[in-house]
């Protein structure tokens, strides 16, 4: 006991070594805690079953001009609108300077399929579903905070910052579309 306490006494006044041990232990502890917390947060992310719903095909043959269809893709509603000739004309006639998020009508659709407007149906403001064929611009009106979209789904008035989002999609044939 006596020898032990005397060696301890000799070691004690070595502040550099103590500080090092203190900081090292603290750092290891912090990394350990962070490592343990991460999985607890990460489990909140979308799980494998949600992520699995990557793409889906839809048949458009039954959708007449002037009609729309709402489909579900990755749990999200998607509008598929068969636009009328006047709607396309109206959308094309809008000067880009009138737009909050400038995009031409051509950028909103696929070449050769201008009549089909395919957009994620959630308002870019806070995610409500806008109502079709309404609002001052003949396109969509969001009932939640009054955003108005034109016949190309572009934001024209109200709090939404951007145009309705286009999902990735391609036409497999004239009446078959694959979203995702």
């Amino acid at each position, binding site marked *: 006991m006596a020898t032990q306490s005397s060696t301890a006494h000799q070691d004690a006044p070595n502040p550099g070594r103590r500080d090092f041990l203190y900081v090292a232990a603290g750092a290891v502890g912090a990394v350990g805690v962070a490592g343990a917390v991460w999985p607890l947060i990460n489990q909140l992310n*979308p799980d494998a079953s*949600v992520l699995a719903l990557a793409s889906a095909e839809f048949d458009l043959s039954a959708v007449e001009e002037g009609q729309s269809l709402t489909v579900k893709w990755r749990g999200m509603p998607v509008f598929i609108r068969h636009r009328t000739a006047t709607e396309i004309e109206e959308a094309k006639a809008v000067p880009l300077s009138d737009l909050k998020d400038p995009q031409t009508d051509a950028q909103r659709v696929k070449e050769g399929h201008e009549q089909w407007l395919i957009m994620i149906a959630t308002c870019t*403001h*806070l995610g*409500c579903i806008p*109502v079709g064929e309404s609002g001052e611009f003949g396109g969509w009106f969001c*009932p*939640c*905070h*009054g955003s108005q979209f034109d016949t190309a789904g572009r934001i024209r008035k109200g709090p939404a910052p951007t145009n309705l989002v286009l999902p990735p999609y391609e036409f497999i044939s004239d009446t078959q579309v694959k979203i995702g």
Partner: protein
Amino acid sequence: MASHESSYTPGNPVEKWLDDRLPIIRFSKEHLMDYPTPKNLNYWWTFGGILAVMLVVQIVTGIVLAMHYAPNVALAFDSLEHIRRDVSGGRIIQAVHAVGASMFFAAVYLHIFRGLYFGSYKAPREILWILGVLIFVLMMATAFMGYVLPWGQMSYWAAQVITNIFAAIPIVGEPILLLLRGGFTVDNATLNRFFSLHYLLPFVIAAVVALHIWALHVPGNNNPIGVEVKSSRDTVPFHPYYTMKDLFAIIVFFIPFAWFVFFAPDILGHSDNYIQANSLVTPAHIVPEWYFLPFYAILRAIDFNILFIDSKLGGVIFFGGSILILFFLPWLDTSKVRSGTFRPIFKWFFWLFVVNFVMLAYLGASAADSSVLGLSVADFSKLCTAYYFLYFLVILPLLGRLETPRSLPESISEAVLKKSAGGSSAAAAH
């Protein structure tokens, strides 16, 4: 005050034995019974006690509801109907919880406005005030998540809109949104985690309430004249004076509460919430619960871009700012005088603030494309939002410097005696 002498002497050997080991009786006696309280507190000071009771009511009814509720998108809506129709007494218990949330908020708003008028947030009560604002934020989170649980149309779209608020944050917004929802939209994962958190948060609130009361018992209560306690002549023991006053107020408060529960349990809610959640259709007119309306109006008011900040982020900044600003209030109000009673100009701005807040609530409930008093809802909301922020950022900082307050009474007891002398026109016995 905290440092007063304890008058507790253990009455018997068992109490003595306990007192040497865990002085819990001594603690309760000091803080719940003998605690010296200003003798001039009016009924505005009873809302703290009412709030404590409401928290217990929510926790007790909530735990009971959780015994019958199923947190799953396929079952939640029906399980609520099951509670209301099949569970013995479930109709009343569910109504108490749902109406209770509204009564809780009614009380907390009165409690907060009491603080705003009487300057209760000023030194040395800043921490007390900040803890209060924290409780308010936690209450809002709890009530929001609770409102999602019935899985009706309003539940669903409230969840959709409110979680989307986080997406406005630059860069990290989208990942946070996925993390909150656990999917690309609000779905089963969201409902489940909201139930888990809705169960947890009230207990966190209870813990913060304990800190809130601790922070109250260090400096002691503020009071209607805002003059600090100077001697024991200014105070009375909490029990029986204020236990009885609080109890009376609680009973009065329970009368409208009971009326709602028994005669109009749904009047504060929205009929759309009796339609099961449908992720493909947003109700034509979505509105939050009444207690969120003023803040909702502020969120909606920002429909224009501010420099490089787009309207969505702008709305979120103002919405968040309208609550965060309360944390800084103790340092924004520069007046040395606490109570609004002695601030002739402040009074006008204060009452205008109250009217403005009620107006914001009204605007929050109005359809986005309608108009109120000849002004469009959008413009009116901008005006009211502007006053909300001006009150805190310009009026309170300047008024403290510009206004000449009325002279303050010497002490609480002097003010009380003068008042009773004036009231009964009898001479005050000094």
